[in-house]
């Protein structure tokens, strides 16, 4: 028996991660984000890149929602014609990493300190200038938050974070990638400019 409404026990809101394989075609990213907007799902982060199979992109999307919303989200995403597959990663043991770069104010007298701090936390120095250094780290979002805390007193001039990318651990499962469609041979014409950014 239930209360007839869609609330209830599973209403705990949490950050949930999804692996989404999509066809690498024009407008697909727009279709995915449009769905989130229209159905009122809130994206925490989204990252896209090429998957193993040619013609397929893989997205990692993090959404704050409850379990029932999560189930609907997976069904709604799966309904899109260009979405090949959508898995929630939340329950699966998985590696969740984010890449971050911080441009930290570091006058010559502070520089050694900043570099030591960064390397001690597993981050790398990827650029050194007179008054600043760029620290790069790949780690879980929590550890990156920690790194930012440590660097903040020196002055973070600029920062960029990619958002989460995630992959299930080998022991958990090997996700068989969905196969792309066998496209008929297609002649490209000069009329369609290729901006080199990929078509998603």
């Amino acid at each position, binding site marked *: *028996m239930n209360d007839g409404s869609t609330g209830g026990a599973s209403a705990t809101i949490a950050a949930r991660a999804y692996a989404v394989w999509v066809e690498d075609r*024009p407008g697909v990213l727009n*279709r995915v984000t449009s769905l989130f907007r229209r159905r009122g799902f809130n994206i925490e982060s989204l990252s896209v890149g090429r998957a193993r199979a040619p013609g397929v992109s893989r997205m990692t999307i993090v959404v704050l929602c409850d379990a029932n919303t999560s189930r609907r989200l997976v069904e709604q995403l*799966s309904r899109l014609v260009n979405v*090949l*597959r959508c898995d929630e990663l939340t329950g699966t043991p998985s590696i969740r990493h984010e890449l971050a770069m911080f441009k930290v104010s570091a006058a010559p007298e502070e520089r050694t300190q900043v570099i030591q701090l960064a390397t001690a936390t597993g981050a790398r120095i990827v650029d050194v200038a007179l008054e600043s250094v760029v620290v790069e780290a790949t780690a879980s979002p929590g550890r990156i938050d920690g790194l930012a805390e440590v660097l903040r007193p020196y002055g973070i001039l600029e920062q960029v974070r990619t958002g989460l990318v995630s992959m299930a651990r080998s022991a958990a499962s090997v996700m068989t990638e969905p196969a792309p469609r066998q496209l*008929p041979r297609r002649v490209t014409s000069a009329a*369609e400019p290729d901006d080199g950014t990929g078509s998603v």
Partner: protein
Amino acid sequence: MNSAATRTGAQILWESLLEEGVRTVFGYPGGAILPAYDALLDYPIRHVLVRHEQGATHMADGFARATGEVGVAVATSGPGATNMVTGIATAMLDSSPILCVTGQVGSRLIGTDAFQETDVTGVTLPITKHNYLVTEVEDIAPALHEAMYVARSGRPGPVLVDITKDAQQASTDGRWDRADVDLPGYRPHPDPPAAELRRAARLVNEARRPVILAGHGILISGAMAAVRDLAERGQIPVAMTLLGIGSLPADHPLNMGMMGMHGESWVNRAIQEADLLLAFGMRFDDRVTGRLATYAPKARKVHIDIDPAEFNKNVRVDVALAGDLDAVLARLGPLVAARDRSPWLGRIAGFRGENAVRDIQHLPDSGRLYAAHVIHDIWRITEGRAIVTTDVGQHQMWEAQYYRHNAPRSLITSGGLGTMGFALPAGIGAKVARPDDEVWVIAGDGGFQMTMCELATIAQERLKLNIAIINNGYLGMVRQWQEFFYDRRYAGTPLLSPDFAALARAFGLGGEVVTRRDQVDDAVQRARADERTVVLEFQVEQEDTVYPMVPTGARLQDMIRRPKPEAAPVGAK
């Protein structure tokens, strides 16, 4: 001139549609679709020239709902395409398979704000099942075959294919067959696991007070016989959604009638008292549930739908079976035991009780004309055999209550989107699709004026329809809400209309005004006998109200019921 093997994009367009079985399109030409129109003359495809592109989409929709086949609408770029938006959204909300083909400016001009350029795939993205921007001639055939497949398969819906002018003009000797459609991400036909089917069957067999909720999915899937068998074997009463009307004959003893906001009170009471709801191809719209927290509180719920995204969206269900309804019922049916549920059926008959005497049909003829009378009389005279199309509003609800549909696909109405102006073009589409059937367009005075330009389409195509305008001088349903919830402050609802009969005559059609009930029979008979389309304007009671009514947010059992008739004592026939 092209060699035999080389074809232009425009030719490929029509050849692909012919290959898909398309013989009729509804459209309106313009600059960016001109190459396609030029080629159209060489193909055996009937083109119905509409007067507004919204009309083309509603006609394609009416065509689709009358037949189950994909209806096709054609328009040019920019304003031609944006005029289609309402029709596309209407088809989307009611899962109707239509294909919209639009011209687009040349591919080199895309993004330059060229004349009549609009990002139509962007505009229609959230209101189509899928859409395509085609910029190269080689992609026209694959896009069209995929579009037709996506539109008609699974949960049907509108698909738009936007083709640039240069792609229509370019030539290719490439061939592309519809058998080549390969959509690895599209899984339109799920199949529920056997264990879930057994769980559903156990719930049905244990239930003492089950109710079937019959939705549009029954008609789309063609599951009428399966639903009827299941209902009869289990002696399970059936409640209809608005779009489910016709999925079980209205005169079937187990058919209780329509549920929801303007459903009959005994239907809603049965749902509220039920211990099991069997939701077949319906989506628990807010217009059928009333307040969700108090909806069918005693009932377990089994939901069968082809679209798993509908499960647990509004109402939590105990068993969800994703699949084509007819195929699922073919597996579920044998697991359901025959039962005698006469105590439950008797209880529902008790709910019905004294409701019938409140019905307007039992009021004595006071000389006043009520919309319910008009629709009841049209039903009686057409012997319930007509295809009826309606807009949204009071007349739509009266149609659903008083025209008793026995045949599937005989009520074509805008349910989900509630589109005014739908009835007339949808009726044209239905008549083109089924020329041997009698078609009645029933519209209000408000909605009719939104698309009445399509009377010219009727005249040009020499189509025979029958049109009933229920004229109460108000935007009636809005007025009703103002009466109940806005202290009778009739803001923006009094409505001046033209002389509809004279207007019809101006288009070369027949027209007649009816003001008294004793005129209805003859007028309806004359309209039917006329070889032209006839517009009948019924001038009905102005402040008439659709009863019963569940106010938004109220419990289903808290209906505003029909007032007791003053003229007739309770118990009178």
